């Protein structure tokens, strides 16, 4: 290759732009090194090191959102693309990492396990998620996605003494590998189609999203590209748990340790939607193909998630299936975003509201769970309001927001999505969404009811119900975290402030 071309490519390697990811990687390595160097009695400080590392990066990211500091444009020869939205999503994943680490301190304390590797993997996965949010090239996308997925294979089966955790890990491994191969096959087909010299608009770099979009616009009815697009969307649908690729969700969510379930539910799903938003934009010339598929998928996801959640007794399965229904609501936003620019903001706001509310709920779950992390029944929440009013209040606020009850943040997310869907004219989808929202009230409400409303259980029945494990005391950092999450959920419900401007500025 011409050396000047290589030089031009190298000049484009703007390492400063991925400074946060590099720093996360360094902190992850430092954790491993410290575990070897430090005496065992100091190992309890290691989660603090991980937390401090992530917390130190967040301010720099938030500063980079200010107008004068914002990095925009392609870097690394088009592998990455930084924009305001991708910067915001990087903050999202960093916040997710902080919350997962905090939950880890609660859940891991109940297990006899090596702890440090957990934080190490969480940090690495977070770095990969952040790269995923900026990827502008199928190679980057696939490499980052595989880093995330492989990290999750380990995290899901982290409680290796628990058979359910191992089972979940195996299921996630097999189905994850299958979905990765489907995704890869789709990418290859698109590569083959767009690189075909016989086609008009063919390109030398068909993996690049901008180039690919140009090719697709020139060939709006290419069969091979159409198949590739469907396969790529299927691969992504697996990550977000959309119907019909949702079948792994309940088992894996139940078996995985609670912090990992939270990470899967929020981090992995958000990454899937960031990709999906990028891809829908890239595939806009094939809207005749993608929109009907996504529409059917959204309707089926909403109905399946809510109907299946109705019968659950295990809260981890319940929250997993409710997560499936949230994926349906987010898909509505993605569909609307194809024609209504305002819906992009709606999806991002929904994701933030979902992040805050989910971690409030998972935070309470981590405290109610006993040593057997997979065994978390709704009946274990009986009398929570009497014993721990604080936890019960946080749980109610989190669940209320997930259910979309005003004046909580989740309602505003749903409202924005609904406005977007209405403006884009998908009235049928809106009707499905309204029906499923009413259905969802039932199971969220039963959970709240278990925690708040005293019910008398006949003594004969009491033996059949598995006894509730002792509640974990709330430490100061967790108290602050849960309090902040609950306060933010309420505050975002009626005062959006600068976030509102960001939403509307499209």
């Amino acid at each position: 290759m011409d050396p000047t071309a290589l030089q031009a490519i190298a000049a484009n390697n703007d390492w400063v732009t991925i400074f946060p990811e590099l720093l996360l990687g360094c902190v992850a390595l430092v954790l491993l090194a410290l575990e070897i160097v430090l005496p065992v009695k100091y190992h309890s400080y290691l989660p603090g090191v991980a937390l401090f590392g992530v917390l130190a990066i967040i301010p720099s990211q938030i500063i980079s959102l200010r107008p004068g500091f914002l990095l925009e444009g392609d870097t690394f020869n088009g592998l990455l693309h930084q924009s305001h939205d991708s910067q915001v999503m990087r903050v999202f994943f960093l916040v997710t990492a902080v919350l997962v680490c905090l939950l880890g301190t609660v859940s891991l304390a109940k297990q006899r396990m090596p702890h440090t590797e957990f934080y190490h993997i969480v940090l690495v996965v977070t770095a990969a998620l952040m790269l995923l949010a900026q990827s502008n090239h199928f190679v980057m996308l696939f490499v980052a996605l595989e880093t995330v997925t492989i990290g999750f294979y380990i995290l899901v089966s982290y409680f290796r003494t628990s058979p359910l955790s191992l089972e979940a890990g195996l299921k996630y491994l097999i189905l994850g590998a299958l979905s990765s191969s489907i995704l890869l096959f789709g990418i290859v087909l698109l590569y083959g189609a767009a690189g075909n010299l016989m086609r008009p608009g063919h390109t030398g770099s068909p993996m690049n999203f901008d180039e690919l979009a140009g090719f697709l616009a020139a060939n709006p009815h290419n069969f091979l590209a159409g198949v590739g697009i469907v396969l790529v969307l299927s691969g992504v649908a697996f990550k977000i748990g959309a119907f019909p690729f949702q079948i792994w969700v309940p088992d894996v969510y139940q078996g995985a340790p609670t912090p990992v379930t939270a990470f899967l539910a929020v981090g992995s799903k958000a990454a899937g939607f960031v990709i999906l938003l990028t891809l829908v934009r890239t595939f806009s010339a094939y809207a005749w193909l993608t929109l009907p598929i996504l529409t059917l998928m959204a309707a089926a996801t909403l109905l399946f998630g809510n109907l299946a959640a109705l019968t659950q007794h295990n809260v981890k399965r319940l929250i997993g299936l409710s997560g499936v229904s949230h994926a349906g609501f987010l898909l509505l936003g993605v569909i609307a975003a194809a024609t209504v620019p305002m819906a992009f903001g709606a999806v991002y706001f929904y994701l933030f509201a979902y992040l805050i509310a989910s971690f409030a709920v998972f935070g309470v779950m981590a405290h109610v769970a006993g040593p057997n992390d997979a065994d978390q029944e709704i009946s274990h929440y009986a009398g929570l309001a009497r014993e721990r009013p604080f936890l019960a209040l946080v749980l109610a606020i989190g669940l209320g927001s997930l259910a979309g009850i005003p004046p909580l943040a989740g309602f505003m997310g749903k409202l924005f999505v609904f406005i977007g869907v209405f403006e884009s004219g998908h009235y049928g989808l809106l009707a499905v969404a309204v029906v499923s929202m009413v259905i969802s009230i039932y199971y969220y409400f039963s959970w709240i009811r278990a925690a708040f409303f005293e019910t008398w259980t006949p003594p004969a029945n009491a033996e059949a119900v598995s006894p509730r494990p002792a509640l974990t005391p709330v430490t100061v950092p967790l108290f602050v975290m849960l309090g902040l999450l609950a306060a933010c959920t309420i505050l975002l419900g009626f005062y959006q402030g600068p976030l509102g401007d960001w939403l509307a500025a499209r």
Partner: protein
Amino acid sequence: MSNLTLDPLLLAIAAPLALALAIALGLPKRWSVRLAYAGFGLPALLALYVWWSYGAQVQAHGYAFLSSYSTGLDGLGIHLALGLNGISLPLFVLAGLVGLAAGLYAIQSGAERLKLYLMLLLVMQGGLMGVFASVDVFFFYFFHELALIPTFIMVGIWGGRDRSYAAMKLTIYLTLGAMLSLVGLIALYVKSGANSFDLIALREVIAARPLAETVQHNIFGLLMFGFGILVSLWPFHTWAPLGYGAAPSSAAMLHAGVLKKFGLYGLIQIALPLLPAGVAHWAQVLALLAAVGNVLVVGLITMAQRDLKQVIGYSSVMHMGYAFLGVACFSVLGAGGVVLLMVAHGLSVALLFLLATSIHHRTHTFDLTQMGGLAQRTPVLAAFFVAGTFASIGLPGFANFWGELTIFVALWKFSHVLTVVAVSGVIISAVYGLRAAVRVFFGPPTGAFAIVAAAHPPSDLSWNEKFPALILLAALLFIGFWPQSLSAPLNATLTAVYTAAN
């Protein structure tokens, strides 16, 4: 708003909410109870103040006390706009008065976990003041939901028989109604092209560019059934008697008395002026459902009830039928009658729920066949209850009379047959109302109550119970003898808004 004068509407909303927050953050119980008086009293005083000074206020776009605050969503056309016109003023006053009565009754009730109870009631009170003070349609909906959530919790925790089931049923029905009306409001927002939820802006845009007929039909259908479920339109009314039967008294007073009026208020303030073609399309259906379903069928069901709280719950569903009939007339007279009836019914049903609980404290049952002869021991309670029943039936001298009379006059122009059906409903309500009063208070004590009454002679109403009842009864009589205090501003606004729409 740059001037330093305090906005009375904002203060009436914020004061109860701020107190609720203070209680949630751990105010000691003694202080919670003391400050709760202020939390309920202040909105009531401010409501009376705005009522008193409404005529003297400067009006902009037909609204007095107009003000606007940004919450960060100006880009989407959402901002907290507050103001009162002739339609919302009577309901704002109603919310203040019933809120005060319900609050006082709750404080003296000494319920279990009193702090939480008062906190939820204060949240509800703040939401209620907000519903009727909002000019922005989004916040109108938002405050309704804010007031609705505490109802579910209060039914679930302090409710009576079947509370768990009742709370669940209430939640699902009311969420469905709220979601349908939300979709209708979003449709209005998108289809009008106003890019604003502000009612004044919506009115101006739609006046300049009316919506297409089919669009109006669809949106009015959504709003009619959405709001209809919230107001217990037959056949979606089954949550109401069950929910009120199970709800603790103050929650039932606030919900049946004030919050339920949200749907009717939405129809009169938003749907009728903005969607005239939609009303014309649906009026027959609405009138038929209301006259046959709410008035006749539910009226007959009410006559068959044996439980005092069920009688009041069903009667409240029945009276909503009259209100729907007034809406269906789509005239200044009909809508004015509905607003008067809403205020009157709100006051009287709150009074009856309050007295029902006081009766329960003395008889330990709601079963009408297990009572009797209470009038000899508790003459004051009996007098209040009989007065409340007369008001509910619509006897002249009480506010309800004016509401029902106006609606019947307006209805005569709409349909003679339905007017006959509606007027026959008055006889039905007289039958069940008087029969309930007779069974509770007159005749010899029956069944188990005779033994209980002999062992523990029931005492008459204490001042703590009398005072909230007195507020409600005084308001009923005041409006009954001087309806013009409400109807003058009401007439001005309705004439302005409805003639513009036609």
